[in-house]
């Protein structure tokens, strides 16, 4: 067996003031399915990264900002597994 891998989760969401047409469509569909107390839905990305060895946190922030998210329209958060 390989040494246990370390996981890092990155959540990338559309910024609050940016239109999220996908979220709107899902919200409407949920209402149609009878979940009438749903107020709003936002849809983002969930990335599960597996590392042999955890990277330098600053480096990780850098790739989240430059590659994994688009800072013009998205925010990201790094979550421990």
């Amino acid at each position, binding site marked *: 067996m390989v040494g246990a891998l370390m996981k890092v989760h990155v959540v990338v969401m559309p910024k609050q003031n940016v239109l999220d*047409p*996908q979220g709107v*469509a*899902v919200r409407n*569909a949920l209402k*149609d*399915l009878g979940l009438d107390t749903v107020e709003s839905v936002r*849809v983002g990305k969930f990335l599960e990264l597996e590392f042999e060895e955890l990277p330098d946190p600053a480096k990780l922030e850098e790739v989240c900002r430059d590659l994994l998210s688009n800072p013009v329209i998205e925010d990201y958060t790094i979550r421990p597994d």
Partner: protein
Amino acid sequence: MKIAVVQFPGSNCDQDCLRALTDGVHFQAEYVWHKQTSLYGFDAVVLPGGFSYGDYLRCGAIARFSPITRTVVRSAKEGMPVIGICNGFQILCEAGLLPGALIRNQSLRFVCKSVWLRVETGETPFTAQLKGQRILKMPIAHGEGAYFADKASLDALESQSQIVFRYTDEWGNATPEANPNGSMHNIAGVCNEARNVVGMMPHPDRAWDRQLGSEDGKLVFGSLAKALEPVISR
């Protein structure tokens, strides 16, 4: 004989399908709005391509819950011929009428081009006049058309001849190079066990006029005439 062309919000091949049916193979065809719940008076249904509900979340995921889709599911179970083209195929998979799912193209990019297809079975209402592994030419245009099914389902599809079309080269060889999107087993179209429901990613609705570079789409729609003969004469 009258064919229904379903219009979902975001369908964009509805007009092409209607034209292919009326001008291409001279059937009677009418639109059916997604909020309708009846298919009374229709002999077959086409779910056209497009981006139903924007294809937000997943292709076909929201259309599955549309009122008309529930009716289509019921009618299909009663044996009505149903074909889903492109987005229509995705909807049929989401609705559970067809096995498997269509996932993002392996290239991660939308692909629009002309492809060759080998007809794998004449035993569906949409291939009834296409015996003997005919090779057809028609366009594809999709971003999420890679056919996926787990091993057991694939085995079942193969053993029960439920694979209707495969991507091939011009000479009918199902090579990896001829696979435009990463579909398993080069699958371009499948049918259900009862064989009355067919889904395909390529567009017969864009290949029914010589000027469009192929008329092979007429063979697909035209097969319905043969398939429905017994129904009509009854």
